[in-house]
Every structure is written in C-alpha cells, then in structure tokens.
C-alpha cells in the first residue's frame, strides 16, 4: 500500500505521537475518494450557504403571473412548484436547514457519546457495564422511529428533532469511543498522569482523547452522513420544518404529486441530498482507509 511510505517517516510511535490528526489528514488527502468527496460536499454546502443570499424570488411567495407547476421559462428558470413559487429560489434557500439540523444533532450526539464512552472505558467495572448496557438499549429503536415517538407527544418542533437525532447518535458514538480508548487507558502515560494526581476529567480529555482522534473523526463523518438522511427523511415525512418554509425534504414531499408534469422541484433536492450523503461518506471512507493504513504501518514498525 502507498500509505506505508508516509508511515516510515513517523518517529517511534510507542509513546504519544505528535499531532496524530495531522498525519491522518495528510494520509487521507492522498486518497482520490477523499478529494472527490470533499469536493462534492463543499459544492453542496456552498450552494446551501451562499445560494440563500441570491434567490431570484422570495422563496416563500408565489411568482406573479405564473401558475402552479409552470414549466421552466425565462421568468422562472426551473419553473414553479405546487403553490406557484419559484423552484430555483426554494432550492437555493432550502439547504441550510438540513445542514444546520444534521450538523447540530451530530455535534450533540458526538459530544455526549464521547463523554459516555470515555467514562465507561476509564472507570471499568459496574459503571462501564451500566453505561454501555443503557447505550445498547437506546440502539433498539431506529433513529427515525425514536424521533417519531417524540414528535407524537410534542409535535414537530425543531429543537425536539435535534434532540432526538442527537440522543440516538450518542450510543453509536459511545461504542466507538469506548472501543478505541479501552487500550489507551492502560498505557503508561495515563498511569503517569494518575501518579502525579491529575484530576480524572483532565486525564480523560487531555491524555486519552487526543489518542483516539482518528476513530472519532471517522465516526463523526459517518454519523453526519446518516444524520443528514434522518433529518431530511423526517422533514420529507412532514416532521421537520413546517410550510411555508423552504427545505429540501419538505420540497420533495410537497411536489411529489406533480412529478410527471414538473419534476424539477423534486429532482433538485433529491439530487442535492444524494450528493451530500455520498460526499460525506466518501470523505469518511478516505479518512478511515488512511487510519487503517497508519495503524498497519505502526504495528509493522514495532
């Protein structure tokens, strides 16, 4: 593998390596899939973030003189949707919500999951068992079903959606964190930190955490991919942003019945969500391949 070349230049890795995340990113960057994935992701993020500033029409108002499901014309380049609103404007304005909601819930889920996983791996014994068993229980409901149960009680609130998706991201992140840090907590430098009396929180976050960055980065990109799917899926089902908001998932739902007459308001968001998930998963795969390559090189050099 070409990764081995990179690894040779790394000094003795028995002790804490210097900036493992930097090595990880430079190795990952050598993979074509990382570059392609990052390019696709940035394209969609760019459309979502910048696009909302340059909508030809206000996205939540109908275009004058145009009927619902009007064909593409010089007035509305991609035609109008089920309520006669400009498709291009709604597409450009509708991506931010998916990104923000998925990003927020991934961040919440990763932070909670890492905290639980680190605590479990470091404390061992009963607390470890209790924490990880409760994480297993949370896995028994698919993310979307968990979110729907909450939505049934409170209604389609955005904070609830973020909470539901974040909470269901947590057990998955916790498993990965615990798995990666079980070995690290046994290392000598952790013993040394204990010996000089560092508080537990300090040991976990400044001694253990920096050594498990690569599995965590891989997990974050994987979770982001899935959470984009869950968030967009929920808003497709009508439990995300509520009309008349512009949102990719909602757009697909609102215009499905006109697919044969005017496919654009469905096709554009479908394509964008597809590209976004493929992009983030390519990046994740590139980083994970790099991590495996570095790990192999490390065990070979020992």
């Amino acid at each position, binding site marked *: 593998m070409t990764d081995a070349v990179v690894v040779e230049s790394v000094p003795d890795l028995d002790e804490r390596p210097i900036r493992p995340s930097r090595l990880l990113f430079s190795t990952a960057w050598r993979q074509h899939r990382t570059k392609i994935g990052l390019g696709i992701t940035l394209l969609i993020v760019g459309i979502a973030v910048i696009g909302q500033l340059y909508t030809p029409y206000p996205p939540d108002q109908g275009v004058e003189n145009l009927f619902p499901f009007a064909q593409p014309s010089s007035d509305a380049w991609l035609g109008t949707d089920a309520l006669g609103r400009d498709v291009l404007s709604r597409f450009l304005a509708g991506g931010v919500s998916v990104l923000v909601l998925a990003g927020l819930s991934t961040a919440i889920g990763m932070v909670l999951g890492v905290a639980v996983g680190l605590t479990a791996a470091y404390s061992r014994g009963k607390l470890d068992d209790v924490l990880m068993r409760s994480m297993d229980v949370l896995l*028994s409901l698919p993310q979307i079903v968990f979110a729907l149960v909450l939505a049934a009680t409170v209604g389609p609130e955005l904070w609830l959606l973020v909470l539901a998706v974040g909470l269901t991201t947590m057990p998955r992140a916790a498993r990965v964190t615990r798995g990666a840090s079980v070995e690290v907590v046994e290392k000598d430098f952790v013993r040394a930190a204990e010996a000089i009396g560092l508080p537990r929180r300090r040991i976990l976050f400044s001694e253990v955490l920096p050594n498990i960055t690569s599995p965590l980065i891989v997990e974050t990109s994987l979770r982001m991919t899935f959470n984009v799917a869950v968030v967009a*899926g929920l808003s497709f089902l009508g439990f995300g942003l509520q009309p008349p908001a512009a949102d990719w998932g909602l757009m697909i739902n609102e215009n499905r019945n006109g697919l044969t007459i005017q496919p654009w308001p469905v096709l554009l968001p479908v394509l964008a969500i597809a590209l976004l998930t493929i992009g983030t998963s390519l990046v994740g795969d590139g980083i994970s391949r790099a991590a495996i390559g570095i790990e192999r090189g490390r065990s070979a050099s020992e």
Partner: protein
Amino acid sequence: MTGFIIRRLLLGLVTLWITSLIIFAATQALPGDAARSILGRSATPESLAALRQQLGLDKSVFTQYWEWISGVLTGDMGASLVNSLPVTEVLSDRLVYSLFLMLLAAAISVPLGIYLGAASARRRDSAFDQTTSVATLGLAALPEFVVGITLVVVFATNVFTWLPGVAVTEPGVGPWHYPKQLILPVAVLVIAVVPYTARIMRASTVEILESDFVEMARLKGLPEQRVLWRHAVPNALAPTFQVTALNLAYLAGGIVVVEAVFNYPGVGLLLVDSVRSRDMPVVQAIALLIAALYVVLNLLADVATILVSPRLRTSLE
C-alpha cells in the same frame, strides 16, 4: 449452548422492558400534555378532562405504565384514539403487509450481499471488486426516500412507466396479490441492506482467505472455487449475520420512509399517520413492536452465528 441462548434471551427481554419504559417516559416526561396537544389550544376544560380520563392521564404515572404494560402482555394494547378500534386489530392487517415486504427484501438481499462480498474477496482488487466497493459505498450512504423517489422517477413516472409508483390496495387482500406494486418498495429495501452485507462479507472473507486452514485446503490441491465456498465462506458468515441482523432491524426505520414514499399500507405508514394525529396508543404499540423486532433479530443472529461456526458450536455444547 442452551445456557448461552437463555442468557441472550434474558438480556433481550431486559432490553425490551427498558425500551418500554423509554417509550412510555417519552410520552410522559416531555412538556405539554397529550390531551391538550390532541385537542389543540381552543379545547374546553370539560373536553380536556374527558379526554384525560379516557387516556388515563388522571391516574398516577406508575398506574398508567402498569396498565399499559400489563395490557401489552395480555395482548390488549388499548384502543386507537382516532377510530376507537382495538390497537391489535388496527395493527394486524398492516403487520402482514410490512412483514411480507421485509421478508421479501431479506430473502433477496442477504444471499445477494453474501455472494457479492465473497466474489469481491476472491477477486480482490480486480475491476469487479473496485466497482462493487465504490457502488456499495455510495448506495449505503443514500437515504431510503432518495432511492425510492429516484426509482419512481426512472421506472414509474418520468423515464419509463413500467411499474406502479404508488401502491393501490383493498383492505383484506394480501400484498402478494399485487406483485407489480411490490417491486419498487422491495428494491429500495434491497438497495439499503445489500451494501452492508456485501462489505462485511468481503472483509471477513478476505481475512479468512489469508488464514492457515485455507492455505492448507489449497495445498491439498482443492480447486479455488471449492476452497472459497466450502472452506472460507462458512467461516466468514458469522460476522456477516451479526451485521445483517442489525441492518434488518434498522430496516424497520427504512420501512417507515419507504411505505410513505409508495403509500404502502403497512405498519410504517400507520406510524407516520398516527404520529400526525397524535394517536398515542398506536404509536406506543408500533414503537414497542419495532424494538421487539430488533431483539428477536439479534437473538436469531446469535443462534445463526453459533450454528455456522464449528468452533463455537462445539465449545458451547
């Protein structure tokens, strides 16, 4: 071996019990009161009180949980708030539809995934392997509703019009009477499961193909096909079953979306409708059912793992 399975069964039951607590708590602990959210802000105090009594909200939380869970255990899940029919009755027809869809999807995707994974492992780094790898990575990332809508556009509405894009069914008629309507929903589920099965199968087959006993089989002069299918594949199945069980369980999440895309009258569509109408007894029952499916599938995977791995089979006897 029976001891092991009994332990897993107990663990599964505990999981299910705690999940029932979570489902119940989720409908209790959150701000807002079910009666008010069902009736809306304009509800009169009398109608609120009446509905609270009907829902049992005037009783203590413990009594409410006890009445719900003891009802579930005796097959009485309460009545739907929408049409007052018993939840079990509302569910039974829908369940047949969803289970049929899932079984069909599982029956196609599991063998297909195993075959693709094993074949990629054998021709490692070949064009076939590379193509499968990229395709499975991309397909695994796609949300089910994106795949569903794309298939509708291509095969039902815009490009070709070969297949129906929505399911049109009559009550009381089994889903197997409409084979054409099943093709697209099943295809979406197959596309959702095959990538995971194929990828884990490839990884574990690659590992097994490098082990000593496979080398031994080659040295005996067995043809490579026989080495792969008789020696390597059976040993690579164990981790594949675990991952596949997990994925089939999450298919329950996928099925919610797929049924909504195709208007397929199963449990998933019922869940979406019930969430919309705040029909709590139905929502709770379906959530519990999906958790039970997860527990059962994991248990099946454990049993299957024991049955296919000779080492475990003998050591646990």
